């Protein structure tokens, strides 16, 4: 397949997840001296890993918040051309209701990115094959900082974790959109247009996604292409993408303790406990989808992503309507028809590049977990995703599917895994309904098992656009 996608200019993380580079750290930076920061950025821009190379030892990416781009000196009119969500930021007051950043996830309690924390301008993302190189090279990177100051360092190390398992013990990252023009191809019905994830290409509505631009008067360089919509503006967004970053803390003990209490009828029962948790997830710990293996886990289906809901499980008897997998990707179950649902579903996709952080406690047993020496250390997910419309993709999924207690005709059921019940229904806890015959089982008083402790909306520009930022005078 001939592709017109300019992989050479696209930052590599958008193209691949760097599973071969398990050691990673994300450096949150604040610009202290603009002129020096631009010089530093100029050097960094030469190190950025592009979308063609397949690094085996090291990768470097860089992304900016709105405050960061403003600080670097982009002009007023150009700044206005960014998406509203990005300009307002993740912590704009009304956004807490869209994202569910309420209660324990209140932005006032965040460790970074919140109103009480130092302003984040830049995120430098470093990936390595070896833990040792991370420690050595990260120190070198920090020593080279010029005009920028380190606010916080976030580490994720895949190699210390069970392979690709998230902290509740389930295989993660199985379902990813297949993108037209990328090397990995699949069933054409499910191939998504590149413009859903990379600016400058057609989206699922066969239009170019709105892209931030720099006015002709302001543009002193030849780094940016002309905007395709005409006029004398230059396309700053081309080959870039909006990056959502959220640090989500997971309470593993609370999770398995709840599963135990809810299934404990005269004795703790691991099988029942895991089954309830799997009903909530929509997959078994191995990753096997409930639609295919409703009764018990079957590692033979671990990576299986070739399932649908409409024909196989219309009533949610195998995979409950409210389960995480069913609501974060409803596939063909939302209507009006299964075919239309598939089509509409493609307009609410995100490209996930998150990584877990913290040490892994390998147990489904709350007693064992409670006794674990690492229990008090924070663990969770550095949730990272790319999209070209934060409101239609990430925020839509978060609000209309994950946190929506009314999803698919339900009453008070937010996502049991990652939802926050303190949304529109304003209840401290939600329910979880397991569709069954003759009648459903309803688990009540499901609390939030996760909380957000930091986050920001970033823009990850194309490599030439990074150079443009460094060239502003």
């Amino acid at each position: 397949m001939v592709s017109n996608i300019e992989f050479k200019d696209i930052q590599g993380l958008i193209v691949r997840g760097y599973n071969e580079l398990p050691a990673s750290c994300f450096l949150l930076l604040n610009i202290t001296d603009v002129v020096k920061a631009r010089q530093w950025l100029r050097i960094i821009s030469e190190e950025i890993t592009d979308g063609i190379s397949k690094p085996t030892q090291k990768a470097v990416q860089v992304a900016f918040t709105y405050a960061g781009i403003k600080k670097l000196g982009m002009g007023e009119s150009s700044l206005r051309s960014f998406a509203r969500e990005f300009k307002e930021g993740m912590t704009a007051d009304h956004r807490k209701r869209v994202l569910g950043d309420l209660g324990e996830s209140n932005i006032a309690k965040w460790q970074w990115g919140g109103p009480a924390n130092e302003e984040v301008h830049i995120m430098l993302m470093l990936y390595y094959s070896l833990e040792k190189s991370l420690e050595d090279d990260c120190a070198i990177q920090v020593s080279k900082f010029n005009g920028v100051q380190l606010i916080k360092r976030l580490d994720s190390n895949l190699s210390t974790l069970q392979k690709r398992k998230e902290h509740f013990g389930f295989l993660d990252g199985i379902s990813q959109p297949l993108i037209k023009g990328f090397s990995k191809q699949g069933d054409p019905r499910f191939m998504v247009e590149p413009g859903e994830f990379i600016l400058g290409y057609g989206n699922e509505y066969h239009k170019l996604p709105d892209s931030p631009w720099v006015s002709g008067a302001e543009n002193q360089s030849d780094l940016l292409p002309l905007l395709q919509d005409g006029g004398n503006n230059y396309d700053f967004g081309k080959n870039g993408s909006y990056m959502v970053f959220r640090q989500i803390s997971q309470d593993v003990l609370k999770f398995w303790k709840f599963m135990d209490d809810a299934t404990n009828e005269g004795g703790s029962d691991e099988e029942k406990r895991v089954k309830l948790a799997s009903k909530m997830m929509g997959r078994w710990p191995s990753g096997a989808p409930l639609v295919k293996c409703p009764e018990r886990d079957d590692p033979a289906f671990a990576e299986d992503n070739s399932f649908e809901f409409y024909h196989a499980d219309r009533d949610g008897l195998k995979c409950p309507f409210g389960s995480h997998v069913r609501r974060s990707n409803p596939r063909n179950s939302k209507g009006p028809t299964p075919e239309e649902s598939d089509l509409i579903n493609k307009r609410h996709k995100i490209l996930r590049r998150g990584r877990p952080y913290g040490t892994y406690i390998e147990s489904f047993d709350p007693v064992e977990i409670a006794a674990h020496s690492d229990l008090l250390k924070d663990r969770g997910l550095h949730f990272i995703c790319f999209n070209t419309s934060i409101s239609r993709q990430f925020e839509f999924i978060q609000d209309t599917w994950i946190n929506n207690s009314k999803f698919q005709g339900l009453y008070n059921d937010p996502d049991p895994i990652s939802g926050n019940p303190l949304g529109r229904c304003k209840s401290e806890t939600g329910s979880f309904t397991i569709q069954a015959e003759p009648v459903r089982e309803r688990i009540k008083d499901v609390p939030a098992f996760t909380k957000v402790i930091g986050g920001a909306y970033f823009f990850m520009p194309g490599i030439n656009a990074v150079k443009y930022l460094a060239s502003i005078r």
Partner: protein
Amino acid sequence: MVTHGALTVYAKIKPGMVEQLRLKLYEIHTPPNDIETNPIVPFKSITTIHFARFVILEEAKDLKGNTISPSLVLSTNYDKPLNKHIEELAQIAGAGLEEIFNYCVGFERGDDLAAFIKKHKMSCAAFYKGTPYRSVPRILREAELREDIANYIDKQVKSDKSFNAHTLRNKIVEYVNSEKRYAWICNKENPTFLWKVWFLISKIFCVLTITPVAVLAAICGIIPIRIKERQDSSEKNVLEEEKILKLVNEEDKIVQNQLTHLVDIKPGWFRLITLKFVLFIINLLAIYKFNKGELGSIPSIHFARWVIIDNGRRLLFFSNFDGSWENYLGDFVDIAAVGLTGVWSNTVDFPKTKFLIFEGATDEQKFKTWTRAHQIPTQVWYSAYKLLSVQNINNNSAIREGLTGAMSDKEIKDWLKRF
């Protein structure tokens, strides 16, 4: 049986009184007051109101540059009959409404409130209702009943594992019948047989008379429409950040959201006639086709209405829907683009259309920008059931209906799925 009405009261604001009126409206929902119990318009006590809003239409210029003076719109979605609704408004909120309308031209303290409301009532060009035949008290009663039965089922399932669908339903029916507070479930609140027959006859009459007219209109209209479309100037929708912030700051607080949208109708009689005709058809579809909780398979709209105001110069749209603005507009684009383009292609700055109903709203980014650009703040908004979605309300009714009469095994199985 209860049917729903849409009351729109449109009154000009007395010169220089806009800010004072704005303050008064602000008082209604601002602490220590709250929207449900405030002493000005204690909405919760008005049992005929599903949703209500007050909106100030700011001073504006029409397309010819003439000034349109500011006005106040009161809108309710109410349980018919209208006289009883207005009576209740006057009885429970009379003093507060007098205070409010006192800022409007043609009303002075002590005037007859009911007469003023009737005089300033505008008719809707199209009206959709997502929960037909359900009065406010019925919606609240049925929600309580469902919750109670759901809790009863939780207990039953725990205490006895041997039940089957048949015995479970019997137990539920027995339980509900044993509770005196549910005596109302036997009341007839759905359309009667005679009414259904009348409805069917009128539907057939409509289809037979309207179809040829619509086809003829389409044939005659298609060329002039296309000519007009090609002459349309390109859209220029600028989003004022401050206004957008004002809008989103009021959104996503309860299960439902609201939208108030005001836009100039394109100049000339041809566009106005076309718009009226399209809305007339949509109104008929809303009555005869989309009357089971979905508007063209959008399952989240409680009520929506279009009102043509200012002698055909502007089009006003009010809607109450479940979930977020983004979801609602997404449904418009993905599912209902043709119908909405048919309406709004007759208004200014709408994304380019083809043959009246094509393109337009399918241009997702431009359509959403246009909608936000012409959306206006709603000063006061009330919902009588802020925790219930359209799907919840209609499901609750189906649960209630399943409590009486005989059912086949298949029907019992399906009925139990509703919990």
